[in-house]
């Protein structure tokens, strides 16, 4: 008949419909069938080569309840004649099916979802694994699904009693892992790739995705800089390998340039972390800090609309770790400090001290300006799909109120997302569209100032008097934080983001696919600030200028990609996959800024006295920037027998950030993998123990994290810079450049192994890496004599080594279901070269080091050697020059033994980047109940604390001591934690606190009970009666307990920002840590 075409097909476990499509592609045949009919078919396994159409059709209709007729070039599919079916059954006869579902050990599995295929009829198993369901068609199939187990589909063929055994999912091997520009099966991944699925982040009251990722993947280090709503967080993969920005490249749904923190965490399907060069090199020049690939949820084909709601509502309680001493005690301590400084007059008279004691303490200002605040997260999504298209639409709302008193403040974020796919023959379109609005309402001051101002006032002062006037005092002379928070105006951030992409995929042949992607992100951010005047009593005023500030900024990232992918298996055992692509990514931004002073007090509008603050005003050409990156990239992977793997990734990037001649860079990487347990001689091991895969990769990735146009020396005018005759004049500034600026390159070696034991119940993976980054883009040291600063040069080299491991174990007992996971990672870096050999910038009292041979930005200072205990020790000991120290003052190690403590006696201490970071979770289920406990922490970190937290009465700004400071030196307490008290300006104080020493360094190690969830899932029988497929209610708590070496601060707060800029030690300026208690609901309709 008709056409003599040869067909080659290799498909496993696919629907028959898919096979039809494949045949259609390879031949001229068309299919004619009824969809309903196909739903009764079972999955097809087929492997044919150059077979005739009849041959192929015979194979796939084998054992199916349907048959076919070839008419011309159309294949008509029809039901098999009744007689051909099982003899015991009558056609379309309802049947009441019952049965039991057991796990791999034969124990009853409760809560397994049982669904009649192609219908909405469903139930779930009871506590013993038993179920009963009415099936309209005795020839239908039942689908059994349970989390952690492979889905099982059983055709009834008229049976009314079933016994089903489910097997744990071969998750570690069969999981689809998102990699650069594609996906791979876990079994064939040979790079160091970690994938986090939505399950790991659900139920936690995370306000953003970065927060949700804390502790879920080894060496994916997430650090909080501040707990305030809307505050930035640090995201880092595998520690410090460069001297500037160490943030990974974030790619959302294949598009570079999205903001991970604008995503609704509930929309996330998977997060892949590409850690080694082998997996990341396809992102070439921006991959040296690792790549984080986020994919969002999509609908499924032939899926009825499913509506899911989940919501969380709770309270954030502000927690302060340090506390002031009572007012009278503080007064005594101040007098002691002053007396120790050789000053005769007291600060507080005995009468005053008695009065403080009699009157008792006032409320600490910190407690007075903070309060508990609500947090809500709501998310509603609809997911579904037809034969040719799928959809996922979601809306999300996050509302985290600020813990400050006064007019309502906080973060509100609105998310909308629509992910669609549609197939049209060989063409597949995917459209992703997401809109995020984020609104932050803030006070018009600085949180650090408000907090420290509140914290440093002793308890004998009040914020407000009985007449309602805001009070100033000798500590807060200008204004007080309550006045600023209640009446001082506001700052409002209103940010819109549209993220979208359109993908067209054309399947040319069974082995060749073409793909075009166009997408990007558009940001429109604005900030509006109004500062209001507040008068204080008896003196002081804030906001007297009635500043009105406006700033708005538009940013656009566009990304165009064309890809071709060739996938073919040769001789059944040679799998070849080749991907080649070209792309352009470009970024454009511009913004304007206007600041007016002396505006109308009520409306903030211009009046006669109003002036424009020229220095703060910018037109959009002044706030513009653009850059562009052209790339050619690809991946070739080969595997033999699913046993040996080899992969090559590369990218060839040209960037506008470098001049012609230095513009293009080539970034290759190679990986190999070996599944040892696939060898015949390992069969015994494979059957009895589990799988083992070995992996190794080596490659070079780059970094172009420098400002635009840095290779050109530029001149710019700015004003007003000076004046003549009381008239402003503008002036010229300049940016000197290094025209030879070029790519930073990181050579990374990685080896790893993946193990599984007990039929995948226990999986373990381990990776070690060694990375050497050279030509690091860093601002070189510039002698003052040069007269200006310089932009980034290729001026450094860093080695970063580390390891990480992840372990997970699942056990389903007769009563309890357990899941345990643990991940640990550690990194260690060393500066191998830094141009100019040494840089010791100050960070408050201490310094940090950029120097060959030491970890990047290690702290440097004097090393304490106890205290001078008596006058003899003072006179004999080495002291800083010019300081008349006393017994009870710090004694420092005189490293060079010259009798003087000076710059030649500096020691290098630890560094503030966390090491031995870990996360561990334990999940236990009992009937409908579940308990999730998640711990996270840091094993080693040198944390700098300073200011009031360390120095009593800090520089005379701080006027109260805190409880933890009471362990200070006295002759009776010679081994105290802190030196003796002495006033600012005295030699003792200068010696003890102004000469930076390890007094300011503390251990930042901690273990934190980050999240606890206790949930209950209603039995499906009950929830169905209520019209729901699933209902889970739970209680969730965040930051509940912290075990740490230092009790008086939150050890999680870091002094590094994401560019590893050290903003100085925690000095009591941090927003309180939030302890969350809330209630959550998860409903599927």
């Amino acid at each position, binding site marked *: 008949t008709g056409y003599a075409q040869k067909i080659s097909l290799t498909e496993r476990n696919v629907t028959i419909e898919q096979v039809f499509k494949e045949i259609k592609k390879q031949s001229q045949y068309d299919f004619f069938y009824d969809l309903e009919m196909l739903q009764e078919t079972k999955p097809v396994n087929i492997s044919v080569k150059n077979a005739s159409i009849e041959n192929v059709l015979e194979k796939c209709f084998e054992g199916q309840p349907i048959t076919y007729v070839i008419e011309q070039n159309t294949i008509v599919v029809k039901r098999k004649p009744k007689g051909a079916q099982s003899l015991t059954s009558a056609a379309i006869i309802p049947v009441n099916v019952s049965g039991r579902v057991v796990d791999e050990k034969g124990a009853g599995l409760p809560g397994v979802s049982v669904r009649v295929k192609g219908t909405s009829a469903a139930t779930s198993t009871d506590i013993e694994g038993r179920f009963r369901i009415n099936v309209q068609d005795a020839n239908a199939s039942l689908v059994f699904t349970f989390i952690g187990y492979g889905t099982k589909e059983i055709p009834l063929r008229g049976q009314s009693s079933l016994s089903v055994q489910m097997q744990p999912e071969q998750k570690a091997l069969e999981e689809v892992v998102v990699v650069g520009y594609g996906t791979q099966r876990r079994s064939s991944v040979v790079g160091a790739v970690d994938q986090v699925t939505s399950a790991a982040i659900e139920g936690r009251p995370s306000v953003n995705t970065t927060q949700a990722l804390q502790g879920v993947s080894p060496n994916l280090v997430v650090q909080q800089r501040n707990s305030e709503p809307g505050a930035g967080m640090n995201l880092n993969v595998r520690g410090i390998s460069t001297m500037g920005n160490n943030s990974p490249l974030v790619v959302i749904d294949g598009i570079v340039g999205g903001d991970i923190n604008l995503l609704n965490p509930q929309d996330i399907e998977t997060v892949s972390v590409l850690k080694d060069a082998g997996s990341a090199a396809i992102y070439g020049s921006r991959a040296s800090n690792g790549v984080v690939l986020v994919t969002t949820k999509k609908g499924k084909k032939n899926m009825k609309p499913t509506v899911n709601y989940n919501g969380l509502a709770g309270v954030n309680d502000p927690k302060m770790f340090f506390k002031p001493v009572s007012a009278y005690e503080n007064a005594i301590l101040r007098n002691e400090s*002053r007396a120790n400084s050789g000053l*005769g007059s007291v*600060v507080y008279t005995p009468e005053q001290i008695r009065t403080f004691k009699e009157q008792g303490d006032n409320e600490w200002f910190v407690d007075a300006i903070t309060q508990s605040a609500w947090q809500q997260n709501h998310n509603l999504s609809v997911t579904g799909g037809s034969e040719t298209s799928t959809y996922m639409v979601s809306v999300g709302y996050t509302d985290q109120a600020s813990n400050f008193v006064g007019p309502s403040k906080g973060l509100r974020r609105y998310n909308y997302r629509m992910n669609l796919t549609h197939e049209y023959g060989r063409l597949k379109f995917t459209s992703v569209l997401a809109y995020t609005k984020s609104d932050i309402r803030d006070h018009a001051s600085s949180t650090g100032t408000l907090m420290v101002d509140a914290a440093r006032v002793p308890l004998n002062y009040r914020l407000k008097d009985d007449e309602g006037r805001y009070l100033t005092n*000798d500590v807060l*002379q200008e204004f007080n934080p309550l006045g600023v928070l209640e009446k001082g105006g506001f700052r409002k951030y209103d940010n819109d983001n549209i993220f979208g992409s359109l993908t067209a995929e054309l399947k040319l042949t069974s082995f060749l696919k073409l793909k075009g992607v166009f997408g990007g992100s558009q940001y429109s951010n604005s900030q509006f600030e109004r500062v209001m005047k507040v008068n204080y*009593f*008896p*003196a002081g005023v804030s906001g007297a200028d009635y500043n009105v500030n406006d700033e708005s900024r538009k940013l656009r990232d*566009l990304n*165009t990609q064309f890809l071709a992918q060739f996938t073919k298996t040769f001789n059944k055992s040679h799998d070849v996959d080749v991907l080649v692509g070209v792309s352009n990514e*470009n970024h*454009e931004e511009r913004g304007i800024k206007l600041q007016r002073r002396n505006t109308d007090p009520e409306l903030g509008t211009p009046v006669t006295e109003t*002036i424009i603050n*020229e220095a703060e005003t910018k037109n959009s*050409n*002044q706030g*513009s920037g*653009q*850059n*562009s990156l*052209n790339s050619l990239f690809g991946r070739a992977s080969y595997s033999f027998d699913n046993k040996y793997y080899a992969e090559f990734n590369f990218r060839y990037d040209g*960037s*506008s950030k470098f001049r*012609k001649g230095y513009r293009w860079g080539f970034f290759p990487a190679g990986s190999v993998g070996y599944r040892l347990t696939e060898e015949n001689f390992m069969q015994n091991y494979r059957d009895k123990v589990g799988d083992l895969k070995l992996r190794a990769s080596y490659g070079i990735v780059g970094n172009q994290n420098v400002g*635009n*146009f840095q290779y050109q020396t*530029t*001149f*710019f*005018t700015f004003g*007003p*810079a*000076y*004046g*003549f*005759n*009381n*008239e*402003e004049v*503008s*002036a*010229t*500034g300049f940016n000197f450049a290094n025209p030879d600026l070029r790519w930073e390159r990181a050579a990374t070696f990685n080896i790893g192994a993946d193990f599984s034991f007990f039929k995948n119940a226990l999986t373990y993976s381990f990776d070690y890496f060694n990375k050497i980054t050279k030509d690091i883009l860093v601002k*070189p*040291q*510039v*002698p*003052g*004599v*040069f*007269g200006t600063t*310089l932009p980034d040069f290729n001026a450094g080299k860093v080695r970063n080594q580390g390891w990480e491991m992840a372990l997970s174990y699942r056990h389903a007992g007769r009563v309890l279901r357990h899941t345990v996971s643990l991940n640990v990672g550690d990194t260690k870096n060393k500066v191998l070269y830094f141009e100019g050999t040494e840089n*010791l910038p100050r960070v408050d009292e201490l310094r940090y080091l950029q120097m060959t041979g030491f970890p990047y930005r290690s702290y440097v200072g004097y090393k304490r050697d106890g205290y001078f205990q008596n006058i003899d020790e003072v006179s004999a000991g080495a002291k*800083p020059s*010019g300081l008349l120290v006393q017994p009870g003052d710090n004694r420092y190690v005189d490293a060079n033994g010259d009798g003087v403590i*000076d*710059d030649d006696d500096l020691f290098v201490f630890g560094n503030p980047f966390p090491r031995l970071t870990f996360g561990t979770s334990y999940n236990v289920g009992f009937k409908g109940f579940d308990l999730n406990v998640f711990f996270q922490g840091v094993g080693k970190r040198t944390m700098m604390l300073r200011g009031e937290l360390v120095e009593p009465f800090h*520089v*005379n700004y701080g006027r109260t001591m805190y409880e933890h400071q009471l362990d200070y030196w006295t002759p009776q307490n010679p081994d105290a934690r802190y030196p003796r008290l002495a006033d600012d300006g005295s*030699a003792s104080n200068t010696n003890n606190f102004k000469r930076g020493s390890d007094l300011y360094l503390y251990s930042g190690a901690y273990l934190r009970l980050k999240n606890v969830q206790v949930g209950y899932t209603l039995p499906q029988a009950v929830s169905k009666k209520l019209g729901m497929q699933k209902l889970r209610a739970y209680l969730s708590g965040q930051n509940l307990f912290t075990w740490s070496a230092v009790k008086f601060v939150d050890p999680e707060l870091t002094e590094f920002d994401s560019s590893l800029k050290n903003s100085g030690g925690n000095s009591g300026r941090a927003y309180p840590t939030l302890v969350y208690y809330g209630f959550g609901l998860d409903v599927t309709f």
Partner: protein
Amino acid sequence: CKDLELAPEDQFTDLTYWNSPAKAQSMLNTAYSQIYSTDHFFYDEAMSDNAYSRTDASGSNSIATGAYDASLARLKDEWTDHYRGIKSCNLLLSNIDRVPDMDEALKTRMKAEARVLRAFQYFQLMTWFGDVPLFEKDITIEESRSIQRSPRAEVLAFILKELDESVSGLPTNTALSEAERGRITKGAAIALKARVLLYESRWADVVSTCELLINNTNNGSYSLFPSYEGLFLPQNEYNSEVILDVQFVPLTRTWGTFFDLAPISAGARLNAMAPTQELVNSYRMLNGKLPGESGSGYVESNPYNNRDPRLTYTVVYHGYTWKKPNGSTQTIYIKPGSDPNAAKLDEYAPGSSKTATGYYLRKYFDPTHTTSLGSGLNLILIRYADVLLMYAEAKNELAKLDEATWNQTIKALRSRAGFTDAGALNYNSSWSQGDLKEIIRNERRVELAMEGLRIFDIRRWKIAETVLNGWVHGAQFGPANEDGGYIRAGQRSFDKNKHYLWPVPREERSINPNLSQNPGWN
């Protein structure tokens, strides 16, 4: 897709920038804007015996107490700030000839302005550090990492040569159009040269240089402004006494140091620096005698009565009648327990954030200030009174101070200050050269008090080890058993073997190993 060859929208490249005289002027403006740090102008006083800084503003207390080393941030700031200024001048000087169609006279003048500004920067560097790297053209980053310090004498010679060569290209102050007020003039270059020579004790040269401005109108016209108080008020900016000043613009380019210097009740938030009792003691009685002298009429319980009127225009003391911007007055209560108002804003209290000495600052308080005591008042770097004082000092060092010179200098200053008593005004032929030296030095101290110059004077006179040792005091509000009841504000120490030169900043030496260190600092 976007091209890879992109250009910034708001910046010129080196090739496109130097295309008009306005662009050259704009670069010159940059150099002007770097002429002097406001904070250093004020807080340098606290390095001397004139003032005390409780907060160690600009490192002043660390330096005054001798408790510093090469890592002190102020040292690096001082070093870096001046080389920044030098770079702006060098960029202008090496590129201005590229500007097409530029008027030669204008070009010559702008070059002269830049050279004077550059000389001023080198002068300050040399004064603090001694030997410093000296270069006349913009240097490369590589050169900056290996350059050596030039001997102080070479730097000095360069400064003097630059000033000499610039004078002819500069206009006189009388030739300056109104719109150009604030620019470098012939007079400014000459007066600066006089100061450089003064710091070298080249007395004969000081005399001859000062004479280019005294009784000589070839280089401009200068005279004492009739009112000492008015000299520092905004309505009298650009008066005949001003030779060189840092320019500010009311409302838009302002400085705010007074927020931490004025009495709290006058709108300050706290006090960062306060005049010392030692400064107050140096003001004479109206009869010309110092408080300690016999027959002075000084009464310890009423210490501010019948004093040099300049005291009142400089220092705020207990019972001070403070003139408010609106013309009314208020009394400043500083003595503990004296303020009838419960808030006691200005009262001295040990360990408080208010004055540490019992005094506040008045000179340069701007009645037209904006919020937070912001001011557009110009800060005078060189004024004619200084020229007169330099002249008198040099004449006396040459033993040539006669009555005519006295009348022309010290008497003129005292009359202008408001002295009328003959004992204060008239020359006394019985004074020895040594007596006169003390008188002139003291006159210089009070006339120029709180104008940032005292620290340079005590260093060049080599009296720092005397005046910067032991307790520095405040008013008589302390415990009676200590120093006669005068507040012990802080203790000071000066090592004459090392402190007369600052150390080269540590970081500079670690980047550039060719930089040597000053004696005593290794």
